[in-house]
Structures are given as structure tokens and as C-alpha cells.
């Protein structure tokens, strides 16, 4: 039963990650794959604030999200000023660079990881309680991203993706919208990271690397870009898959590469066979207005 709870918690946190990544890469059209680094920044920032500075965990969670958002703005401002493509390159460098820094700083736990992070719930609380919290957070994040994407901000994002020049010539500040979207998505990732840190009470730098990037990207692409439930389905499916692989009794050193192959293989297959993903996006704007006014 404990194992099941752990799986549900991990799936829920990955739902937050994939949904927020959908906001960035799907609705925002911002090509970055460094989403896990904001998960990491949220986790480490919140953990260190609570552990070394005695900040109450509930406050540290939100501070972790805020610090992840600030870090994302620092990354986005210079790279988006040049062109969208630079964000991809800069994001990979940023991700690997920050992870290297964490690995070499002993006060951040170094390569061995940061342990003894203050827990979010008093010791002895049934696992079910945090499982419920994680599921609720995942549902709230999904609802929140849907609200954003289907509201006035989402309309602007849609228009910007369609034609950035025409968008700017109407008085819309594309840069501000992009940075805002990136920061919001990263804040959600940071919050998920902080929850992870205070629940499992141990984080290592290597869990936020390129393999995690591939996993989240796969969840969104396989689930369905710009669809509400796509990233949720993708997260459930792709979080369950590695769990199943562990039952295959393969040598441990095969598991990592096998997961990587599986994720990137799935992305390629879906790109060719079913680019819209498992849950295709509806034409949010025209479809919605037809329903409510037509």
C-alpha cells in the first residue's frame, strides 16, 4: 500500500510538472526543455530555507516557487531578447550549469544530495494525508492552467503564437507575455519541487537532469500539446511505465538508458503517427466562442 501511495504522489507531482510545461511549450510556444531545473530550484530553495534558516515549511514552499520564477526570468530575459531559438540552447546550458554548481557546493548537499530536509507533515501522519494533498495540488494546477489558457491571457498567447509581428503591431508586448508565461510555468514547477523535497526529505542533483527533461517533454507530447487533460494522461502513463520496467528484473545499469530510449522513442513515434497526442487539443478560441455565443 505504501508503494501505491508513493506512486500516486510521484504521478501527481509529475502532473503539476507536465501541466505547467504545457503552459510554457504548448500554449506559450516557448521552446525550452529545462523545466526540471525549476523543479530543482524550488526543491533546493525551499529545503534550504526550512533546514538552514528555520523558515516554516508552508512559507518555504511558496518561497521556493517564487525563487524558481525569478530564476526563470533571469534565464528568459536575455535569451528571448535575441530570438526564441536561443531559449532552447540557453535553457540546456542553464540546467546543466546549475546542476554542476549544486554538485560542487557542500552546503547544498553536493553530488550526494541534500538530506534531513524538514518534513511537511508531523512525523507519524498517515501517508494518505500527503497523497490527498498531492492529488489536490495536481488537480488545482490543471484547473489553473486551463483557466489561464482559456481566458484573456490565453487569447493573447494564441494570437502571439499565430503571428508575433501582427500581435506587436496591435500594441501587445510579446516579450512581457513570454516572460510572464515562462515565469508562471516555472513557479508551478518550483512548487512541485518544494513539495517533493519536504515529503521525501531528500533530493539529489541527478534526478533533475536531461532524463527528467525528456520525461516531461514526452508526457506533454504523448499526452497532447495544448490540451487540458493530455499532460495529465501523459504523466500517469509515463510515470507508471518506468515503475513497470523495474519489475522486469533487468540489471540496474540498464534501467536509466532504457528509460531514456523509451521516452525519446515515444516522442518520435508520436510526432510521426499521432502529432496531436493521446488527448488532442480543441480549437480553444473559435470552438469556445461558437458554443457560448453562436
Amino acid at each position, binding site marked *: 500500500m505504501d508503494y501505491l501511495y508513493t506512486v500516486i504522489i510521484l504521478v501527481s507531482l509529475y502532473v503539476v510538472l507536465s501541466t505547467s510545461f504545457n503552459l510554457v511549450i504548448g500554449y506559450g510556444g516557448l521552446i525550452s526543455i529545462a523545466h526540471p531545473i525549476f523543479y530543482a530550484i524550488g526543491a533546493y530553495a525551499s529545503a534550504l530555507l526550512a533546514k538552514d534558516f528555520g523558515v516554516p515549511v508552508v512559507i518555504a514552499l511558496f518561497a521556493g516557487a517564487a525563487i524558481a520564477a525569478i530564476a526563470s526570468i533571469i534565464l528568459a530575459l536575455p535569451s528571448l531578447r535575441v530570438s526564441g531559438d536561443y531559449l532552447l540552447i540557453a535553457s540546456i546550458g542553464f540546467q546543466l550549469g546549475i546542476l554542476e554548481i549544486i554538485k560542487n557546493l557542500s552546503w547544498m548537499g553536493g553530488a550526494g544530495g541534500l538530506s534531513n530536509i524538514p518534513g511537511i507533515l508531523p512525523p507519524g501522519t498517515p501517508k494518505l494525508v500527503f497523497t490527498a494533498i498531492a492529488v489536490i495540488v495536481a488537480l488545482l494546477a490543471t484547473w489553473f492552467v486551463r483557466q*489561464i489558457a482559456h*481566458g*484573456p*491571457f490565453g*487569447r*493573447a498567447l*494564441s*494570437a502571439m*503564437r*499565430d*503571428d508575433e*509581428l*501582427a*500581435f*506587436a*503591431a*496591435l*500594441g*501587445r*508586448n*510579446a516579450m*512581457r*507575455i513570454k516572460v*510572464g*508565461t515562462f*515565469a*508562471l510555468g516555472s513557479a508551478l514547477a518550483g512548487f512541485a519541487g518544494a513539495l517533493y523535497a519536504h515529503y521525501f526529505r531528500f533530493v539529489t542533483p541527478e534526478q533533475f537532469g536531461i532524463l527528467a527533461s525528456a520525461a516531461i517533454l514526452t508526457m506533454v507530447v504523448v499526452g497532447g500539446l495544448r490540451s487540458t487533460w493530455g499532460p495529465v494522461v501523459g504523466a500517469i502513463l509515463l510515470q507508471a511505465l518506468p515503475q513497470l520496467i523495474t519489475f522486469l528484473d533487468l540489471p540496474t545499469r540498464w534501467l536509466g538508458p532504457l528509460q531514456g530510449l523509451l521516452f525519446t522513442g515515444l516522442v518520435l513515434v508520436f510526432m510521426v503517427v499521432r502529432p496531436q497526442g493521446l488527448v488532442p487539443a480543441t*480549437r*480553444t*478560441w*473559435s470552438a469556445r*466562442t*461558437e458554443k457560448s*455565443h*453562436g
Partner: protein
Amino acid sequence: MANVVEIIGLRKAFGGIVVADNINLQLAAGQVVGLIGPNGAGKTSLFNLMTGVIAPDAGSVLLEGRPLDRCKIYARARRGLSRTWQNLRLFPSLSVIDNLIVAVREYNGEKLMNVLFAPGSLARSEREYREKARQVLEDTGLSAVADKAAADLTFGQQKLVGVARALMNDARCLLLDEPMAGVEGQAYEIMQKVVRKVAASGVAICVVEHNVAFIRDLCDEGVFMFAGKILARGEVGTLISDPHLTELYFGT
């Protein structure tokens, strides 16, 4: 009449090709000015220079007396400079009315802080924008297609959507790039009516157009451009009957 736009000594060259050669031009409130000239004369380039799409090598553009030179594209639109595009550039994934709503000059929905922390004011603005968009759609005869995807309309209707979208800005100066190309019948009539109405409200309008009849019917004045230069400015009838300009236009 007060000058809304003043262009002073504007110059731009791409390599050896000069698209704007010391352009000086004033656009007055309520006036409709037609930009005429053969392809490659620099008419669209002038619009691009005015709206900040391309940066000039020299010269200055003033809107209501204030220089726009340091303003980005979006900031110029926020000051009240609105335009349409030769190749439409509508937002195909949005419905017609959403194409218009997103074009409101001070669109509240792009400000993330409002979206997150002031949903009430956002909802009020939405109602206001929708109301305004409905009015503009009525004026442009597009009410019936308000909820269709912009990409599903006829070409003439799409041209009208482009103009309707530009009108949402409540601009001080409106630049129309070939509004009539490919437009006929009812859309033609509507376009004329709309341009007249907007001009009557005190907006300075500049139209690039090859449809001579449209220019003659609509414009108070014509400006003839050739090779990046303004060669003549005057009454449209006079310009198009000038043998020298006609020769340049048709390249005979």
C-alpha cells in the same frame, strides 16, 4: 488642420536599394491620403518604417508632436498608430471577434498580474471589449461571422476583418496597406463607408492602394512615390493624369 503624423527626413537603404530617400510627409487629422506608385516604390516600406517594423538609417517620425523613434512596435501602437497588412496577418486560430478583442489598445488580458490578482477588473474589461468589438463588427458588416474562425472567411471578409481589427485601437493615425486588393462587391462599398466614417471622426488615414477608382473616390490627396522618393503630392485626379507620373507608374 492639425498634423497627426509628421515624417522628417526619413531614410532607409537595404544594401544599395534605397526604399526611403529623404521622405518628408505630414498627415492631418480627418484627412485621407493615398500613397500611389509602382511596386517597389517604397510604399509598404514607409508603413514599416512608421510602425517600427524596420528601423530607419536617418530621420524621424512624430505622432502628435512626439517622436516615436525610440519606441518599439507595440509602444507605437499604444500611442495610437494602427495598421493593416498587405498579406492580412490575421490570427487563424482565433474567431473573428477574438481577433478584434485582442487588438484593444490597452488590452487588460496581457497583464499577468491582472489575470492572477484582479479577475474582477478583467471580467469587466472583457465585457467592455466584447461590446466594442460587436459595434465594430456591425459597422464593417461582419456581425454574422463574428464567431467563425478567421481562416474560414472569404478573402474579402478577411480583408474587412483586418481593417476592423485595426479599428479596435481607436488610433490617431490609421495606415491601410492595399485594403482593396482582391475585394469586390459589397465589401468594396463597406470599406469605403468605413474609411469615410473613421476619417470624419478626426483620424489621419493613409492608404496604399493600386485601385485607382478607390483612391480617387476616397482620398483628399494623393502622394506619388517612386524609388523611395516622394515625387509629387496633390489632388489624385491631377496626379494620375500627369503623363510623366503615368509613365513611371506603368514603366513604359
